[in-house]
């Protein structure tokens, strides 16, 4: 490779992964929910990825989000994957954050036996738990949890 080309690749064309899982998860454990705001279209992407989820743009800024949103759907899981039998029953929810994106996590502090359609549209705030991982996972993974405001 020509040295000038190599230098240009590094300085101008190379698109760095702005917010990795490791950094996103580390912030979550410190009480911060990070996302990526697109300078092109203004939309926020979270969970983070290389490009804006709306327009595919790569000009993104890391922003701290409000950690507030509404439940859009949920389920109570009674059949667990291998190694997670001790967690059932648990509630998984998808939450629409105030900033627009949806994220997945567990609803906590609520009796799964009472989970019904009226959970939808309830206001929640985002915290975290740490999934310790299993033999197929790459170690500890911080994951969002939701509780009522």
């Amino acid at each position, binding site marked *: 490779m020509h040295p000038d080309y190599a230098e240009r690749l590094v300085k101008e064309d190379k698109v760095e992964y702005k917010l990795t*899982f490791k950094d996103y998860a580390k912030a979550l454990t410190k009480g911060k929910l990070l996302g990526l705001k697109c300078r092109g279209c203004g939309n926020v992407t979270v*969970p983070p*990825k290389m490009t804006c*989820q709306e327009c595919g743009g790569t000009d993104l800024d890391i922003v701290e989000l409000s950690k507030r949103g509404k439940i*859009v*759907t*949920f*389920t*109570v*899981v*009674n*059949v*667990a*994957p*291998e*190694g*997670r*039998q001790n*967690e059932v029953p*648990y509630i*998984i*929810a*998808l939450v*629409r954050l105030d900033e627009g*994106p*949806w*994220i*997945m*996590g*567990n609803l906590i502090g609520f009796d799964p036996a009472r*989970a019904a*359609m009226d959970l*939808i549209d309830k206001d929640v705030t985002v915290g975290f738990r740490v*999934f310790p991982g*299993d033999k*197929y*996972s790459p170690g500890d*993974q*911080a*994951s*969002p949890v939701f509780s009522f405001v």
Partner: protein
Amino acid sequence: MRKVAIVGTGHTPFTFETEKTSIELFSEAAMDAINEATLKPKDIQALYLGNCLGDFSEGQAMLQSYAANDIGAFHIPATRFEGACASSSLAIRDAFIWVASGYYDMVLAGGVERAASMGTSLATRTFAMFTDSHYEYPAGLTFPAMFAMLTHLYAKKYGVPLEKLKEQMAQVSVQSHYYGMFNPKGQFHKEITVDNVLNGFMVCSPLQLLDCCPFSDGAAAVVLVSEDKAREITDKPVYISGIGQASSGKLSAQKDHLPRLKAREESVKQAYDMAGIGPEDIDVCELHDCFSIASLIAAESLGFFEYGTSGEAWEKGETKIGGKIPINVSGGLKSKGHPIGATGASQVAEIYHQLRGESGERQVEGAKIGLTDTLGGDGILCTLIMQKGW
């Protein structure tokens, strides 16, 4: 591009835990397909094999190479396709493209899985690998959980009371088990009632046991050949006239479009456009009913019914033989079984026999055009349209 025909299919019984290995299962399906095509293994120029979890079910990766050798198709290029539950549909689509291009004349495609052999706990864990491992699996996401969330979303978005929706979904399972009675290759041969479904064990609310397809073992295979070869082999070739494939991001990234899957809409549009037809032209359809709600969601995006109304269609019998569009008269994934790597090839085999008028008691009379819809994970979609070639 050349025309490409299917001229042979093979299909093992779909079962609970089997003692046969994945290679043994696939070889049986493959030899049936090659024999039906009146070819020999040495005629096959390439193998495209769908398999998801051989690594976990029996410690066997790279089985495509051993499978080719097993059937005596020595040293041919053999490629594995992993697209979760859509794996063998992807294999067939790629086989089509290679034969259409003129590169090959005769290709074997199909798939195999031993999901039942893994048991519910390991199968649930490994199927969950078809979700986002870092951003969604830590919450305990499983496949029934995903479709359970889509069920609540469907009820909310279309204003269908959950109780009513549940009854409509039960009707989907009841219909699949009814037609499953007539499929000797299927896993279940037992009729069920709406009450059976609504009184079943709650797997992931609101999905109960009989809303869910089973874990299954089995294999299926098809032989694809160029038009010239097809004319030498049979008077009744079935041509693939439209193909589609699309992908998606993780479930949460699909947000406001849910419970619809954008990838399905992209994939089916490609297939309809290529075939130059629309949903009104389809005579028989095999769609991806991994869960009862999945049938309702799929039938709408394929263009058969308005959004939010396909539950009524099942209730009125519009999806039965004689109805507007017969769907899953094989018994579907629900009753026939769902050995995930083999499912797409099994769907294609069903349409092949339907178009040839060979489906016995579950025959859709006069069927000329058929469609398969296969879903992998939360966002790989593959659509194949087949037409009578005579």
